[in-house]
C-alpha cells in the first residue's frame, strides 16, 4: 500500500492540486465558482422546457428529476475528462520534479467532485421550491454518492493511463460519453422503455443505476437492490482495474509527453 502512504505524505500537494483545478477552471470569469451553481440551473430550465413540452411532462417534480440526473452525469463526464487530460496538463511538473503521479488524475476527479457538492445546494433549493421535501430516506443518498466517487476515480485512472499514450482517446471518450448520457435517462422517464427490449441497456449502465438510486433517495422511494449491487461491484472493479493499470504504466508516461 505504498500508494496510500505516499498520498498522505504529499497531502499538501494534493490539496494544492485540487485548488489549482478549481482556480484554473474559473479563471477570468467574473462569477467564478458561482458558475458551478448557475450552469446546472440554466441547463435544467432549458431541458425542462424542451423535454417537458416535447414529452408532455408538466408536473413540477420533472425539473428536479432532470436536474438530479444532469448533475450526476456532468460530474462523471467532467471529472473523467479532466482525469484523462491530467497527465498532459501537468507536463510542466512531471518533467521536472518527482510527484506520485497518481495525484494528478485523483486530484482532477476530486476537484470536480468538490464543485459537484457545491452544486448540490442548487438541487436542494430547487427541490424545496418545487415541493420535493426531504424524508428520512434522504440520508441514504450518501451511498450512491460514494459509489459515484469510486466509479469516477476508477474510470479516471483508466482513462488517464490510456489518454497519455493515445491522444485520440480524448475525442473517442467524448463520443462514448454521449452514449452514456443517452442511456442514463436524464430527461425522460425510464418507464417509457421499461417493458421494451432495450431496457437492459439502461440497467447495464452503472451510471444509470447510480442516478436511479440517487433519485429514489431524493424522492423518498426505496433503492433498487439489484442496481445498488451492480453499480457498487462495477465501481470497485473499475477502481481496482484503474489502479492496477495506472501503477503498471506510470513510469512510462514521461516518455510520451
Amino acid at each position, binding site marked *: 500500500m505504498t500508494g496510500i502512504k505516499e498520498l498522505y505524505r504529499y497531502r499538501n*500537494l494534493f490539496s494544492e492540486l485540487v485548488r489549482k483545478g478549481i482556480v484554473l477552471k474559473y479563471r477570468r470569469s467574473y462569477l467564478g465558482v458561482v458558475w458551478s451553481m448557475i450552469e446546472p440551473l440554466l441547463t435544467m430550465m432549458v431541458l425542462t422546457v424542451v423535454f417537458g413540452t416535447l414529452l408532455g411532462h408538466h408536473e413540477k417534480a420533472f425539473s428536479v428529476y432532470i436536474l438530479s440526473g444532469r448533475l450526476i452525469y456532468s460530474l462523471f463526464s467532467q471529472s473523467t475528462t479532466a482525469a484523462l487530460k491530467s497527465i498532459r496538463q501537468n507536463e510542466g511538473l512531471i518533467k521536472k520534479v518527482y510527484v506520485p503521479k497518481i495525484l494528478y488524475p485523483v486530484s482532477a476527479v476530486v476537484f470536480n467532485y468538490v464543485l459537484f457538492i457545491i452544486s448540490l445546494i442548487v438541487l436542494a433549493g430547487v427541490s424545496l421550491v418545487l415541493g420535493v421535501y426531504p424524508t428520512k430516506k434522504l440520508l441514504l443518498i450518501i451511498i450512491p454518492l460514494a459509489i459515484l466517487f469510486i466509479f469516477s476515480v476508477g474510470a479516471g485512472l483508466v482513462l488517464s493511463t490510456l489518454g497519455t*499514450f493515445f491522444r485520440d482517446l480524448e475525442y473517442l471518450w467524448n463520443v462514448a460519453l454521449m452514449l452514456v448520457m443517452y442511456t442514463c435517462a436524464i430527461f425522460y422517464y425510464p418507464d417509457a422503455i421499461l417493458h421494451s427490449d432495450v431496457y437492459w441497456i439502461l440497467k447495464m449502465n452503472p451510471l444509470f443505476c447510480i442516478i436511479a438510486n440517487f433519485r429514489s433517495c431524493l424522492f423518498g422511494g426505496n433503492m433498487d437492490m439489484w442496481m445498488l449491487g451492480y453499480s457498487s461491484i462495477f465501481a470497485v472493479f473499475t477502481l481496482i482495474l484503474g489502479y492496477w493499470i495506472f501503477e503498471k504504466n506510470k513510469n512510462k508516461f514521461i516518455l510520451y509527453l
Partner: protein
Amino acid sequence: MKENKDSSSEVIKLDTVTMEFNLHKEKLDSMKEYFIKLIKKDVDKKHFKALDNISFTVNRGDRVGVLGLNGAGKSTLMKIIAGVFEPTSGSVHTKGIIAPMIELGAGFDMQYTGAENIYLYGAVLGHSRKFMEKQFPGIVEFSELKEFIDVPLKNYSSGMRARLGFSIATMVNPDILILDEVLSVGDAKFRKKSENKLLSMMDESTTVLFVSHNLEQVKRLCNKAMILEKGKLIAMGNIDEIAEQYEEMTK
C-alpha cells in the same frame, strides 16, 4: 523517491544505474499508428544508452559540479536523482527533500501566476501553505519579481522563471538541491547574488549538484566534481584534479 534510513552521511547513492531510451523513429501518438505498427510488427526497438552503469555516492554538505559535453547524460542523471525518470536498471537512494531545477526551471504550471506557483512548488517540496506564507516575502524579494508576481508564468521570460525557481528552491532549505544550468540564464547581477546565496548555504548542510558548462563557476562553488562522457562516469573527485582533467579534455 526512495528513502534510505541508514544514519550515515551519504545522502545520494547510485548503484550501477543504467538508463536506456527506446528511440522511436517517430513517436507513436495515435491509436491508428500504433495498430498499424503492431500489425506490421514494426514497433521500433532501437535502444540508446543515455547512462551506462553509473555508481557513486555523495555525502551530506558536498557541492558536486557535474561536467561533460552536450549529450553526455548530465540532465538525464539529474532527472534520475530527482526521481523524474526511473532507471532501466540499478538503484537510486536519496535522503530528505530534493529541490530539483532541471533544464532551466522548476516544476511550474504555466497557467498559474508567480505567486500561485510559489505555493504549488512549496507543496511539491512537501511544505504546507502556512509554512510557505512565511517564506513568501523572502522569496519574492530575492527573485526581484515583485511587480510580476501576479502575472501568469507563461508570460515570464526564461530568466524570470529561473529566478523564481532558484529563489523558492533556496529559501525552503532542501536537503538536496539540483541546479541544472540554472545560473546561466539570469543576468550578471542575479548570478552573483545567487552564487553568494549558494555559498552561504554551505554551512547549512545542503547538498548541491551543480551542472554547468562554466568551469570557473564550478570551481568557485563546488568542492567536488564529476565528468560524464557519453553516458559513462569517467572521473569523480576533488574539484581541483577534476577541473584540470576536464580542461585537458576540452582543449
